[in-house]
């Protein structure tokens, strides 16, 4: 009995000595330390972005005092987070959320109303996250605002295939689309190519060290009964983020696809989040996508044809990116 009891209590004692057992205190420095540790052990782009985590720790922890207000602490922690320059990373205090602005001040000139009014024919169909129509007898147009619902996209492609064999080109517009489910991006990409084509690779963090990664795992296009294998023009801008960048990265090397517009906003990964000692929530990117040639998309996917609307007066009614896509 004695040995049994000794085993029981020594086991609990051993486990209690684990470094993860002790929690950071709910103090300004405790909150900052918990946040820094989480980022240091989990953020996937520390080496890729040449982040010096120790220097960042020293720089920002020096700004923290015991008597600072919550608002002041939130500002310091937010500034630290923004150093990651990653739109997937955020800090949420329950009232507001801070995240890096991937458009970096570039004025948003995309306007769906201009397209509706000046370019689309009357056969417009509105879905929850999508608008479809024809531009002329041979060009179909799909605008996608969010990667949430693959069924609508499948239906739209079927509809275009049914309208006429004359539809020779689809313009697929993902400007100002801030992303959603990457799986939907894969499903969409698969509709514009044959099945089982390598579209990219995913690399996942698998340990606390900065270079703890899995081997890249290949991602292949899926089978589908509503494929459109003719010409596709993908329209992007700086606000095409996350799953939009995934889609651009997956389609980038397909012969029937041309990407037209601005470089995408990047965001090539998924995020995980942590609750800090004061109940704030911080999130960081935990994996990343490489295109079929092994190129990172975190800094954005470069279009085949770079055109921007930023020089066009907002009330001109002109969309240069769309006009280029119609011509090509």
């Amino acid at each position, binding site marked *: *009995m004695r040995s*049994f009891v000794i*085993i*029981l209590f020594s*086991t*609990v004692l*051993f*486990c209690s000595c*684990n470094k*993860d*057992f002790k*929690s*950071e205190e*709910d103090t300004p420095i405790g909150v900052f330390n*918990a946040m820094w*540790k*989480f980022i240091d052990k*989990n953020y*996937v782009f520390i080496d890729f972005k040449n982040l010096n985590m120790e220097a960042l720790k020293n720089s920002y922890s020096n700004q923290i005092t015991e008597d600072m207000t919550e608002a002041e602490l939130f500002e310091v922690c937010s500034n630290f987070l923004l150093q990651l320059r990653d739109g997937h990373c*955020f800090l*949420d205090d*329950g009232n507001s959320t801070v995240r890096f602005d991937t458009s970096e001040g570039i004025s948003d000139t995309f306007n769906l109303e201009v397209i509706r009014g000046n370019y689309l024919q009357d056969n417009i169909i509105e879905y929850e996250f999508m608008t479809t129509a024809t531009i002329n007898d041979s060009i179909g147009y799909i605008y996608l605002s969010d990667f949430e619902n693959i069924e609508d996209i499948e239906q739209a492609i079927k509809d275009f295939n049914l309208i006429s064999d004359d539809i020779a080109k689809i313009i697929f517009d993902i400007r100002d689309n801030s992303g959603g*489910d*990457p*799986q939907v991006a*894969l499903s969409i990409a698969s509709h514009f190519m044959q099945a089982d084509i390598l579209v990219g690779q*995913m690399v*996942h*963090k*698998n*340990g*606390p060290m900065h270079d*703890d990664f*899995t*081997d890249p*795992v*290949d*991602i292949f296009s*899926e089978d589908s009964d509503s494929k459109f294998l003719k010409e596709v023009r993908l329209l992007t801008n700086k606000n095409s983020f996350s799953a939009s960048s995934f889609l651009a990265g997956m389609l980038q090397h397909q012969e029937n696809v041309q990407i037209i517009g601005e470089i995408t906003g990047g965001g090539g990964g*998924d*995020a*995980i*989040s*942590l*609750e*800090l*000692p004061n*109940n*704030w*929530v911080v*999130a960081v990117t*935990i*994996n990343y996508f490489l295109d079929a040639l092994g190129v990172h998309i975190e800094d954005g996917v470069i279009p085949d044809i770079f055109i921007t609307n930023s020089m066009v007066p907002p009330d001109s009614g002109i969309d240069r990116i769309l006009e280029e896509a119609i011509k090509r």
Partner: protein
Amino acid sequence: MKHFLFGFLLSFFIGKSFAQNVSSFWIGFSPNFQSTKETRYTSNFRFGLAYVGTLGYSNYNEKRNIFVETEFASATLGAKNISSTRNLQAGLQFSYIFQRADRINFGPDLQVGSLLQFRNGVRSSNNSISYLIWNSLGITANKPFIIGSRPCNLIGSLPLISYVIRPSYSFPFTDRFLLQENYNLGLEDLRSNIVKGGKLRTLNSFVHLKLGIESYYFVKKNFGASIRYQFSYLSYLKQKSLFQFTHQLIFSFMLNNSK
């Protein structure tokens, strides 16, 4: 774990020979106060009250006691936080205890258990769920004693070797999903790959210690009740750790059958 003591004391209370086989069924309900630290998504312990249902069966004689108990618990932790967690916990315990007069009874113990955690209010897809699933082989022991005229029992169990299933470091499913041949965003064969994705763990990385004390009250020959205080400690110490302490007060109603 009503087993040995229950049989032993029952022989006094109902005047039966202890050589009989005695079967017991019980159903119990209890509040359960738990503190859980799942380092996959929180940097500190979260606290909450769970509600637990228990169902058990034992068959015992003077040589051995076969004991089976299952329980299910549900709790919401951090309900006022930005992201709260729904914890669902289930367990099945099977013990074969060798009865030894005036000494501590012990024997092998098989456990299957799971702790599933579902986060609310989060916008990050890769750790919105977490889980710990275990299949364990260990030891269990008990020691009956009397307080006043009240029969009581000290009980404890500890898994020694376990097959444990946890999510990958950064992925909602097991490491197995990150191998080329299994990586499948369509999540086909999900269950089979999760089950195959576990790892063998021993006491240095997986602990599920249960300690308790129980007291019995008999209303009639074949009908009684018991009250049990149970402390349990659950921990997983590989990569992203998990710690859980629970304090549980279990009220059970028992039916007995002697042959």
